[in-house]
C-alpha cells in the first residue's frame, strides 16, 4: 500500500524539482531586475522582490543608443521574416503541389541549407561584406537573416500547403479562377496559421542571432540587441540589477511570442494528424 503511494508520488516530486530547475534562471532574471540594489548584494539572497523598483530598467534603457538598437533589431528581424515569407510561400507551393524534375533534390538541398553552419562562416561573410563596403549597415544583416530562416520557412510551409485539400483549389479553378487566383483566394487564407507560426519561429531566430552581427556591425549605433546585451555586463561592471533588467527587456518579446507559438504549433500538429 505504502509502496503504491510512493509509486504515485515520486513522478510528481521529480516533476516539481524539474520545474524549479527549468524556471529558476528565468525567475531569477526577473526577480533580480526588480530588486533594489541593496537586496541584490545582500549577504543572504533575497528570494522575492518585495519592494520592487523600476530603477534598473531605467538604467538599462538610458544606455546610449538603446533605442537605436531596439530599432535596428526590429527593422532587421521584421524585414528578414517578411522577405523570407514572401519568397518561401511561392517555393513551398511549387514543392508541395507540383511535380517536376529535380524536386526531391531541391527539398534535400533546402534541408541541408537549414543546417548551414553560419557560426563558422563568419570570417568569409565578414570579408565579403567588407569588400562590398557594407560593414555597419543593416542591409547585409537583413539579407543574411532572411536566408538563415528561409529553409525552415519554406519546408514548414510546404507541409501546410500540402495539408490544404486539393479539391478546394480545384473547385475554385472550376469556378473560373486562374491557378494564381485560386492560390490567392483559397490557399493563402487557409495558410494563415502556418504563416503565423513560421514567421514567429523566424522572428525568434533573427532576434537572437549573435555571431554575424558581432562580426559585421561593430559601431555602437549599428549593433542589435544581442550584442548590446552580451557586452552589457562588461560595460557596467557588476551592476547585476541593470544587466538582468537588460536581459529581461531582451527576452520578454520572445517569451511572449513563444507562449503564443506553442499553442499554434500544437494546434498545427493536431490538424495535420486529423488530415493525415
Amino acid at each position, binding site marked *: 500500500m505504502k509502496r503504491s503511494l510512493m509509486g504515485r508520488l515520486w513522478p510528481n516530486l521529480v516533476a516539481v524539482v524539474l520545474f524549479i530547475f527549468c524556471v529558476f534562471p528565468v525567475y531569477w532574471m526577473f526577480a533580480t531586475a526588480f530588486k533594489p540594489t541593496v537586496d541584490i548584494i545582500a549577504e543572504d539572497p533575497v528570494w522575492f522582490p518585495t519592494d520592487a523598483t523600476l530603477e534598473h530598467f531605467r538604467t538599462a534603457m538610458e544606455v546610449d543608443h538603446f533605442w537605436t538598437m531596439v530599432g535596428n533589431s526590429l527593422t532587421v528581424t521584421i524585414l528578414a521574416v517578411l522577405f523570407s515569407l514572401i519568397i518561401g510561400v511561392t517555393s513551398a507551393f511549387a514543392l508541395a503541389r507540383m511535380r517536376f524534375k529535380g524536386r526531391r533534390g531541391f527539398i534535400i538541398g533546402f534541408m541541408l541549407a537549414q543546417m*548551414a553552419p553560419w557560426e563558422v562562416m563568419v570570417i568569409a561573410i565578414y570579408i565579403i561584406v567588407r569588400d562590398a563596403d557594407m560593414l555597419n549597415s543593416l542591409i547585409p544583416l537583413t539579407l543574411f537573416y532572411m536566408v538563415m530562416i528561409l529553409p525552415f520557412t519554406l519546408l514548414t510551409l510546404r507541409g501546410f500547403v500540402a495539408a490544404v485539400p486539393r479539391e478546394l483549389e480545384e473547385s475554385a479553378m472550376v469556378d473560373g479562377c486562374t491557378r494564381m487566383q485560386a492560390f490567392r483566394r483559397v490557399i493563402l487564407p487557409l495558410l494563415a496559421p502556418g504563416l503565423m507560426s513560421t514567421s514567429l519561429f523566424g522572428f525568434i531566430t533573427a532576434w537572437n542571432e549573435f555571431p554575424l552581427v558581432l562580426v559585421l556591425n561593430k559601431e555602437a549605433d549599428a549593433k542589435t540587441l544581442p550584442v548590446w546585451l552580451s557586452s552589457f555586463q562588461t560595460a557596467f561592471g557588476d551592476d547585476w540589477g541593470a544587466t538582468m533588467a537588460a536581459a529581461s527587456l531582451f527576452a520578454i518579446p520572445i517569451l511572449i511570442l513563444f507562449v503564443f507559438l506553442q499553442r499554434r*504549433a500544437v494546434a498545427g500538429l493536431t490538424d495535420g494528424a486529423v488530415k493525415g
Partner: protein
Amino acid sequence: MTVQKTERPPSGPTEVQTLDGGPRPTGPRRSPGRLAGLTPYLLLAPAIIATLLLLGWPLVNNGILSFQNLNMRQFILHLTEWNGIDNYKEVLSSEDFWRVTGRSVAFTAVNVVLIMMLGTMVGLLLARLGRKMRTFLLVGLVLAWAMPVVAASTVYQWLFAQRFGVVNWVLAKIGFESMADHDWLATQYSTFFVVLLLIVWMSIPFVAINLYAATTTIPKELYEAASLDGAGAWKQFTQVTLPYLRPFLYATTFLEIIWVFKAFVQVFTINEGGPDRLTEILPVYAYIEGMGNQHFGMGAAIALLTILILLAITSFYLRIVLKQEEDEL
C-alpha cells in the same frame, strides 16, 4: 527548429496537373505549353538564387580564402596572396588545432549524452504524469526553451557570479564553505561546467517535449498485446516503447550533435573561450584565430575543416530523416 517529421502528405489521390492534360478549366492563360513547365522553377527561383548568393557564395569564398595568405596587411591593402595549402599544412600540423578538435569532440559527446539521457527521461516522465502535473512541467520546459541564448548566458553568469552569485551561496550553505567566493570562470573545467549546464538546461525541453509527443503516437494496442503476452513494465518499455521511438531518438541525437558542436554563442558569451583560450571549441577557435588575431586565411582553413566535420554529421542526420519520409518526397 523542429525535426522535420511532422508533415503529412495530402490524403487525396496525388493526381498531377500536367502541362496540357489534367482538369485545367478554361483559364485565361493562353499558351500553357512551354511556360507551364517552367512555372515550378520560376516559383523556386527567388529562394534558390537567394540561397546560392548568400549561403553558397560565402561557403565557396571561405574555401577560396583558406588558400590565401590573408593577414592584417593584405586585408588592409586589399591584396590577394595565394599560398596554396600552406594554411592547411600549418593548421593540421599545429598541436593547438588537434587539442581543440579533441576538446570539441569530448565537449559535444558529454553534452549530447547528458541531453539525450535526461531529455528522454523527462519525456517519459511527461507521459507518465497526470494531466495537471504534465501541464505544469510543460510550462516550465517551454519557459526554459523559449529563453533567448544570449539572455540565458547572461543569467548564468549572474547565477555563478563570484560575489553574490546564488550558486556559491547555496554551496556554502550546504557545507562547501570553500565555495563561498569561488570564481567559476577562472579555470577550464569549471567554465566548461557552467557552459555545459547552460546547454543542457536549454536543450532538454526540445528533446523531452518532442519525445513526449512521439510517445503519444504509440498505438495502445501494442501495449495490450504485450501485456497479454505477459510482458512486465520493463519488458513493455524495451519491446514496445523503445523500438517505436528509435528512429526519433536517432534523428534527435544527430540534431543535438550538430547544434552542440557549433555552440559558438554559449561558449563565447560565457567567457569568450577563456581562461587562457582553454575553453575554445572549433567554431570559437576559428573565430579567435580569424577575426581576433586577424589571420583570416588561417581562420578560413579552420572553418572549412569544421564545416567538413559538420557536413559529415549532417549527412548522417539527413539519411535518417529522409528514410523516415521517403514516401513524401
